[in-house]
């Protein structure tokens, strides 16, 4: 770990002021950035602790929820309104990490966690364009079981590791940020980016911008939703693939649907193609599979992850089948 200064922000304005300098990083629960600092992947020279900022979960005028960025993951997962109105979010959070880590981790930090690509972590022995731009990517032809099949580039095949973000992508959450140029909101799907030729940039945040809150818009049928994660052991492993889905039936047909995949791309993957195939169509196993297949039509599997499109297709079909029958509600 490289020596650094620790500063604690009193309020958002203070945080933005302290976080403006190059080399500053915001500190939430520290469950990811501290690991990255120990491994010298991250070497901030100042850490601005923002855990003293808003951690409240409040009802919004439009019938949604506003979650302060400093809210702990556990608090969100256990919140009554989240559990009843957005169960996929609660389940996604509980599918991740361990109880101890969830107790520490913050919502804002969860959005900004970095990939688990092992080449990204290996500062001594591996090339990584995300960690050291322009050096190359050893994951493309190396161990890439947990890597992307959608939206990757020659420069980077990493995935975003968050569970919670997959649910937020399905829910069309809105990210509130504040920075040197003032406050703004970002649609959740526009927060994270695909790697392109700048895989060192995970998000569209401007330098110094701080996430202050996440807004969950009202979504009536989110009560009929689920999150399913598939991994290499029963707990405490990152997703090979995960699926967040919410379904509204209209008689025998699908009224509306929201789908996002985790573990398949550089960002939580909102499955708009699959949704379009399904909306207004029949609620059949064949339709569910066809929707997933449409989403993964452009998949480019790597050496170790060719199973992902079929796995994601199966899981989506099974989940939608259950949701259509109200089994998971």
């Amino acid at each position, binding site marked *: *770990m*490289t*020596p650094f200064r620790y500063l604690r922000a009193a309020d958002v304005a203070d945080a933005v002021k302290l976080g403006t300098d190059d080399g500053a990083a915001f500190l939430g629960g520290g469950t990811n950035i501290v690991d990255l600092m*120990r491994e*010298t992947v991250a070497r901030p020279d100042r850490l601005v602790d923002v855990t003293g900022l808003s951690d409240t979960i409040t009802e919004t005028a439009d019938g949604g929820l506003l979650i302060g960025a400093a809210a702990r993951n556990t608090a969100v997962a256990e919140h009554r309104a989240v559990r009843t109105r957005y169960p996929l979010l609660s389940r996604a959070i509980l599918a991740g990490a361990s109880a101890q880590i969830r107790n520490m981790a913050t919502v804002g930090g969860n959005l900004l966690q970095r990939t*688990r690509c*092992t*080449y990204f*972590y*290996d*500062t*001594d*022995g*591996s090339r990584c364009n995300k960690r050291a731009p322009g050096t190359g990517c*050893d994951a493309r*032809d*190396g*161990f890439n079981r947990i890597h992307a099949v959608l939206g990757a580039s020659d420069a980077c095949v990493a995935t975003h590791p968050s569970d919670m973000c997959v649910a937020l992508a399905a829910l069309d959450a809105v990210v509130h940020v504040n920075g040197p140029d003032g406050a703004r909101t970002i649609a959740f799907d526009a927060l994270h980016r695909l790697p392109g030729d700048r895989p060192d940039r995970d998000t569209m945040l401007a330098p110094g911008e701080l996430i202050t809150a996440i807004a969950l818009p009202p979504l009536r049928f989110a009560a009929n939703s689920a999150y399913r994660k*598939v991994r*290499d*052991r*029963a*707990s*405490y*492993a*990152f997703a*090979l693939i995960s699926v967040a889905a919410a379904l509204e039936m209209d008689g025998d047909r699908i009224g509306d649907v929201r789908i996002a995949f985790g573990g398949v791309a550089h960002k939580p993957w909102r499955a708009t193609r699959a949704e379009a195939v399904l909306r207004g169509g029949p609620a059949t196993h064949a339709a569910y599979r066809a929707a997933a297949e449409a989403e993964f039509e452009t998949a480019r599997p790597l050496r170790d992850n060719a*199973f992902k499109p*079929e*796995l994601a297709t*199966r*899981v989506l079909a*099974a989940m939608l089948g259950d949701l259509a029958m109200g089994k998971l509600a």
Partner: protein
Amino acid sequence: MSIVDTAKQAAQGLVQGAMTKLVPLAPDSWIPGGRPDPLIDRKHGLIGTPLSRRDGAVKVKGEARFAAEFRHEGMVYAALAHAAIPRGRITEIDSAAAEAAPGVVLVMTHRNAPRMNKPGVFGSSPTAVGSADLSILQDDRVHWNGQPIACVLAETQEQADHAASLLHFSYAAEPSTTSLDEAKANGIEQGVFMGQPLLNRIGDAEAALAAAPHVVDRRYRTPRHNHNAIEPHAATILWVDGELVIHDASQMVTAQAQTIGAVFDLEPGQVTLTSPYVGGGFGCKGLWDHQIIGAAAAKLAGRPVRMTLSREGVYRVVGGRTLTEQRVAIGASADGAFDTIIHSGLSIMTPHNNMPEPFILGTRPAYACPNITLQVEVARMNMLANTFMRAPGEAVGTFALESAIDELAVDLGLDPVALRIRNEPDKDPTSGLPFSSRHIVDAWRSGAERFGWAARGAPGERRDGEWQVGMGCATGTYPYYRMPGAQARITLIREGKAVRAKIEVAAAEMGMGTATTTAIVGAERLALSMDRIEVGYGDASIPGAIMAGGSQQTAAIGAAIIAAHNALVAELLKLAGNDSPLAGLSADDVGSEDGGLAKLDDPDRRESYASILARAQRDSITVTEAASPPLEQLHWSMHSHSAIFCEVRVNAVTGETRVSRILGSFDCGRILNPKTARSQFRGGIIMGLGLALMEETQFDERNGRVMNPSLAEYHIPVHLDVPEIDVIWTDNPDPHTPMGAHGIGEIGITGVAAAVANAIYNATGKRIRDLPITLDKLL
């Protein structure tokens, strides 16, 4: 050459002396264990009573001091830097920033390290336990990707870690072999393990296979595994007046002290090595580069050093289990009788060690069969030296053999339990020796009954929602070993009308309960209560050498205590003199009873230890004695066995496997302490679940680098992966071993991977021959 030396070498496989030919033919009574240990017949003593570990309380209270918890005045902290190429030379070292970093005391590389001898590599002499035939920090050569090439000492661990991250190295890479295909192309050799070729040929196995009416002939693969003991390797090291003191985490205190002493030209008495607590061993807590580098740095800096490997450091410095590619072919008649078994294949080691994964060891005594070919060959790669890992050989060898038997049972339409019992041998089929104790059929029958094996359905038949349910079974096996060199020192100390005893053995307690078991055995042998027994261990200054390896430590300690007890009885009789009720009796006439000695056939003739000592005006008496040479393992075929049953649920949507029930039915001689034994068996089974379903070292074949050196990315079972584990045992004493016991540290892992794979076949109809069985293989 003395008989003891001959026996030592024969037992170690260093020579094929006359002893190996004569011992099998000698009368039983000439052999240790030829007359059953009297403790076997003692029915109502401490042996067999479940007792908690003696070190439990101090560990729970945090009072047990592990290697990285010793503190010395002026101590500094070490951090290592590791090579990033598989083979070549270091051409430049940029250490300016590291040397200037806050708190840095020393940056040591091959350029300024003290001159040291090459540590003796394991097997090169009876006491050498070096991990590789390589000198350490003596030249610019890189032998594996991850090799420690520099050490930083600083006032705090954080400062040392930071400074180490500032070191930069330039290399001149040289041609290297880091892929399996290249290694095979470079040449394949006969594997040699502990001085013996891993090769058996009986009859003509290939010809018999060609003629057999029923045949399975399959290839199985197992990957590399890394050690993940909960305590990362650590040592606190200092020099005192030219002598070396190491607080280490060690499975082999004496041999380790001797090997590291020779590195620094020290005499045996000039190395103090203690290891009272070890946070998990499994074969990895031996001598690796870090202790030698730490000692060198302490010498150069003139300060005590705390050397703690990070988890990544353990992966870069401490070897694990190597990969295997195995062929198992079995030919059988329609009634299931085996006519031929071929178990052969390849494992990988390095140019600088000699450790094939001996996966045929468990096959040698396994099944009656007239034609047998067993062979392990090796190829070499530039990588960290592989090493022992819980049941080296049997853990992965049983996966292949016991999977193939399941495949044959399917082909024959026979129950796999019945097929195994059908081929039960009446003597060791490869050595021809009689078995000392073998009750595997009992273990199979009692296990099948308790598990409910009869409820097993046809492949793919049982379903519970998305989950396909199946049952599988396999035999586990591990030999009884007893290594030479063990000694025990017994001291009786008079306290008024009673005595207490101190029993000292140069053994290691890695958390499995050795100190407790030693106290139980000592109390029974001396006829004292447990609270009168103190056990000393984990210190190289104790006479003798006992390794906590090969599941042999309890037998080695037991035999040494027998020898020391015999010597103690003789000494006490001398002290007793003519005024004692025991006057005139010889050591053969008396035994220990109720805190003293008594005539065996006339227990009224007795005197307490305290009385004997008091009359002789002695406060204490000490004897030290060496165990008998371990000839019994050349005279009998000595093995433990298990029948493993498991039930799995395989998700039809995702391919995820969950083991829902598992039972181990063990035949391991007499169980000394059921409480700690149960934990040992369970721990082994859990490790077997990891072996079956998730453990795999990601070794990047492009550059020989381990890519998942962390507990986050190298998967071992978490609590949710582990079901209720049922453990039962036959508890038949082996009449030819101390206390009738067998070692039980390793057998638990064996057979588990095959039982899981066979259950997955029963659940899904899919046969996976390539570990680990990850979900993508079942989609």
